[in-house]
């Protein structure tokens, strides 16, 4: 029988049909922990830590009956949200610096360097939006006051900006691309950093 530990304390979980998966276990525990404003952060199966992003990984499909021991570690939703916010803030700063470098490379004609930093900027902005969105969902669910202003208001303008950037990139107008990156996208991200977060 599989032993299940939550924050190092063994818990009972009845796998009646012998066909439950780790996902089933996590769902049940998530529901129970929700009222306590806690959240499962880490998972270890038979002594092996699941990789980052395990919630969307294959490990959840594994049947409990095939496992000997499952350890789950929780964190408070508040702590996690704060950490998430801090990461987003830092990431916005990093993207800002990368935009500056990318715009400079575009302006001085260092095409390959500009191309590399452009990819980082583009993916980075999408990641930031996804993370803010997840945090925003969390604030609703757990009734937290994480943001000063609703971040969703910025999703539209950011999306629009990314669309504009994609279009300009196709035209090959590097001057305009550098302008939009440096003087439009970067200030928008800075505004999010200043206006949205506490």
């Amino acid at each position, binding site marked *: 029988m599989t032993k299940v530990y939550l924050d190092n304390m063994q818990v009972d979980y009845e796998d009646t049909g012998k066909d439950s998966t780790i996902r089933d276990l996590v769902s049940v525990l998530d529901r129970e922990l929700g009222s306590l404003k806690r959240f499962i952060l880490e998972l270890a199966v038979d002594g092996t830590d699941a990789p980052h992003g395990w919630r969307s990984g294959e490990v959840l499909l594994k049947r409990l009956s095939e496992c000997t021991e499952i350890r789950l570690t929780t964190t408070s939703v508040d702590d996690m949200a704060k950490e998430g916010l801090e990461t987003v803030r830092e990431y916005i700063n990093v993207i800002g610096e990368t935009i500056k470098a990318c715009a*400079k490379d*575009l*302006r*001085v*004609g260092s*095409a390959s360097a500009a191309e590399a930093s452009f990819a980082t900027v583009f993916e980075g902005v999408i990641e930031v939006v996804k993370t803010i969105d997840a945090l925003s969902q969390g604030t609703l669910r757990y009734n937290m006051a994480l943001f000063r202003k609703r971040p969703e208001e910025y999703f539209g303008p950011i999306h629009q900006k990314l669309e504009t950037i994609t279009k300009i990139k196709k*035209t*090959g*107008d*590097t*001057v*305009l691309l*550098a*302008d939009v990156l*440096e*003087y439009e996208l970067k200030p928008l991200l800075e505004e999010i950093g200043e206006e949205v977060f506490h």
Partner: protein
Amino acid sequence: MTVFEKNRESLVQKEPALFEGLEGRISVEMEEARSGGSTFRHKGMYFHSRYNPRNEAALQAEELAGKKPDWVFLFGLGCGHLMNALIEKGLKKVIVFEPSLEILKGVLENIDLSGAFSEEKVFLTAEMHSAIEKLRSETEGFDSLLVYSTTPYKSVFPDELADFTNKIHNAHITNQVGIKTDMKSRSAWIDNYLSNLKSLPYAPPIDVLRGKFKGVPMIIAGAGPSLKKNGELLKEFKGKAIIVAAITSYKPLLKLGVVPDFVIASEMVDLPEYFTFGEDDKKTRLILGELSHPGMFERDVKGKFVFFSPYLALSSSQAGLWGSSYFPAIGGSVTTAALDMGIMFGCNPITFIGQDLSFGENETHAPGGVYVAQNVRIDRENGMITVEDEYINDKQTYSYKLQWLKGLSGKPVPSKYDWATFHQWFENYMHYLKKEKPEVRVINATEGGAYIEGMEHTTLRRVLDTCLNGELAIDEAIDGAVASRPRIDYTALEASFRETAAVLNRVNRLSASILKEAAEAKKTYGKKGLTADLKGNIDRIKRLEESIFDESDRAKFIWEALINNTYALKEYLKKETDDRAGEGAQFLRDLETVIASYKSMTEACQRFGCRFEEAAVAIREAGARAEKRLMAAGL
């Protein structure tokens, strides 16, 4: 005064032609950037930031300044932001080429760039050949040049940029080659000229033929691989056109059954292998540079003419005394000089054959000449070309940096630096010829190799069918012109040599005094270090140098004789001083340089002083002989 007028005022002296093509042009529309300054959109692209174009230019200038170029060749003026930023960064030697008249007009009408254009070494042009000419006249082979273009110009004008970069590169190589040629040849040229003094009374200046062949077709034959394709047709031109052969094409033409009217040569070395030493030689005339090897003047031919080049102060200053007032424009090869001579003769049209200026399938020259066998290998990856050839009996292998020229078919053809140089010279020459003598037709009937902008391109057959007007009395015209050659001023020539010899003696004494002062200064430095005691020596050296400069104004040739030293000094001055070495070490280095320079100067003065005395005697004797001949002829 409008902005356009201000810009024009600051540019019109430097580039008068710039404004010729602007009338009636549409101007690009300017937009105001958010932080001030202008930008514009052309062919769907912004050329400067809409937010802060000055900052953008500052970034670009910073990047360029890091490369420490002596000259920046800017492809694209834009709104002038980068040009201004470069000047602010201290890069004040800038040649700007603007490929679009639409942009140029819009910018000159709306943005006051007169401050930048007033800088002594900032130039703007809208013509490629003018940019190249500026490179030739303003820069040196020693200089580091940087060709730069912003991304919008790269995107909108890719072909023009490639052409510009290639031409700048080729012209810079020409400058570098010019230095090498100078260093290698100048001393030999002086020696050759002095040795040729005995032959020049028997070789009339080529300008005796000025205007003697008005409207007569001329064919100039180079020895390019394509000569084999159509050279045989030349037989049909014989007697109906003047045929001038570059010396390398003389034997190949003989093989094709054609004896040219003239063979032109200017090599500083003797080239007996290019002659037959038989009857054919006696049917042709030589056109020789005054600096050619003396052996060339000894060939047994039907006649010899001389042309004076503007390259050597000594001979060019004496050309008038030999009865010549003509200095052909020369682009490094004798066919370039032949073109200028053809125009001086009054010939029209002038047709080139064998002027490939590029490598053939597996050959560098047409068959039948001095090259027995050839093997050409092109290494595109490393940009090199290797030529193995058998020259008479010697096997030789050469490697050259590969250069590309636009071919007749539009595709690039492989070339090397000297051919690329000649090619550039032809295109530049044609540009001016079209303006100054539009009635003269110059045809490239080479049927292979490089395309030469400005020339008509057709086949030799077509020239044969359309340009000949029947038999000509070529020999009679030449003989008549020779008979009326201007008299040689032997008295003035002798005086010129004596005066130069006297200057050389005085410069020699002054140089010796400098060496003495420098030796004393070195000794004092060794004993006491860098002290005020050295001031006396240094002041005296400076005064002596001033006297040398005054003297050498009367004998400019001295600087040509010392060309290697001049270049060595330039290199020395260009080197960055090593501050860590300290003032004393730098002083000693400067002193050693002074000593080396003036040692060379005394050697040159002594060597040429003697030769000039001998030359004066030889001229007096030649003059006496000429007088006797005239008396005998009853003149």
